[in-house]
């Protein structure tokens, strides 16, 4: 594996459009559920174990080379909110554009041909990791990190939270993040044997509910 490729893929400056999404933090801030570093940490912890784990499982499975059409259907089934499905496909499309330019590979071309309207972002992330010579566990790490990095950065902007405090939240979550990535990579191996139902399906009712409310706001800072 190339450790440098992992840094390029996980870098917030990688032009894949993630900065426009708050991972549900904008709705949680508006509802008063995120109001300081402690509540941001609780939010990120919950998101990491639900949306983060699911994304990490899909990314690891795609990096392992499992069928992307089947994985995309598994992602749909794990994403009841149409607002979140649309966001995941938009992000997938943007990531694929950046990935094809960065790590040209037949697998990425095939993915673009199979999903003209965009595949779920974690599936694209996994295929991208594979094209970059990374392992399934690396892809799981990136997906898990994105699931909390997005809300943390967004909360700095939304709440004027001290960026040092936001970084502290992410640092405190690091051991859990490692564990989630490892669980996801193990599930990807199980999925190779038993099919995508072996992938995690952890859900958060409140994230789904508030995603729909957020999508109906006339004015918002973040796309999701």
């Amino acid at each position: 594996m190339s450790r440098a490729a992992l840094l390029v893929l996980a870098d917030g400056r990688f032009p894949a459009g993630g900065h426009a999404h708050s991972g549900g933090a904008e709705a949680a801030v508006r509802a008063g559920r995120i109001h300081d570093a402690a509540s941001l940490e609780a939010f990120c912890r919950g998101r990491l174990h639900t949306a983060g784990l699911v994304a990490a499982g899909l990314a690891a499975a795609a990096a392992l080379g499992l069928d992307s059409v089947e994985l995309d259907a598994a992602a749909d089934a794990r994403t009841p909110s149409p607002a979140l499905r649309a966001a995941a496909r938009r992000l997938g499309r943007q990531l694929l554009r950046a990935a094809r330019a960065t790590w040209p590979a037949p697998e990425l071309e095939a993915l673009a041909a199979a999903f003209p309207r965009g595949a779920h972002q974690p599936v694209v992330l996994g295929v991208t990791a594979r094209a970059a010579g990374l392992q399934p566990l690396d892809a799981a790490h990136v997906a898990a990190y994105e699931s909390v990095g997005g809300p943390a950065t967004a909360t700095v902007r939304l709440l004027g939270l001290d960026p040092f405090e936001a970084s502290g939240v992410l640092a405190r979550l690091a051991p859990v993040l490692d564990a989630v990535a490892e669980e996801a990579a193990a599930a990807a191996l199980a999925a190779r044997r038993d099919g995508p139902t072996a992938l995690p399906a952890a859900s958060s009712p409140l994230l789904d509910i508030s995603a729909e409310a957020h999508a109906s706001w006339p004015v918002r800072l973040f796309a999701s």
Partner: protein
Amino acid sequence: MAAAGAGLRATARIRAVADGRGGTALPLLAGEGPLALRRTRSTGAGGAGGASVTLVGAMSAPLGGDHLAVEAELGPGARLTVGSAAATLALPGRDGAPARYGTRLVLAEGAALRWLPEPLVSVRRSDLRVHTRVELAPTARLLLREEQVLGRAGEEPGLLRSRLTVSLGGRPLLDQELACGPGAPGGWDGPAGLAGHRALGQLLVVDPRFAEHPPPAGPLGDLAAVTPLAGPAVLVTALAPDALRLRAVLDAAIRDHDW
């Protein structure tokens, strides 16, 4: 019913078939152990020609270590409504082993099932794993309600893991797992979890007509939302302070949409 190891094993089975005269017959209606089945008078809720069954919990179950299962199979064109007489209580066992409750629903072409059990209450120190698997033929119709209540009034909940896996025509339609209570992964009760709410529920409606005319997505008050899935189905997800207010939201959704 077999008393294997610490807990009991029991499976209740229902088979419903169209009787060829516009009605539905129940060639198999077999309870076991704490799971008793009663054929009940059709209320009309399942539509004309539908059969109706009530699941009667004859004992408090599941206890830790128990493995309970309910299986319902609907043949082509069969119509069935299943309810339960009372809430299901997840109770702690003696040795701390988790209890399991599995439900498997299989619907053939043109079959219609209304699966409307009473809530599942996760009692303090219980540990229950629920898995509901639904396999639908492409033209089957389903209305399925799940309600989970965390603890009896004012009580701490136990650990509850509940997965709902639904396929339509062999393709995945919905796959979700909820974990909550002491021992669940961190953040379950936080701002990206239940945020202190003690009742949550879902209503899954699958209808081939939604392929053309899906109900619109959107919030349903502050704590519920209607979400059309990637197939001909819609999911209503709701949180509430308690079971009564949860039921009111889900009932209103059924009524307003005429599901």
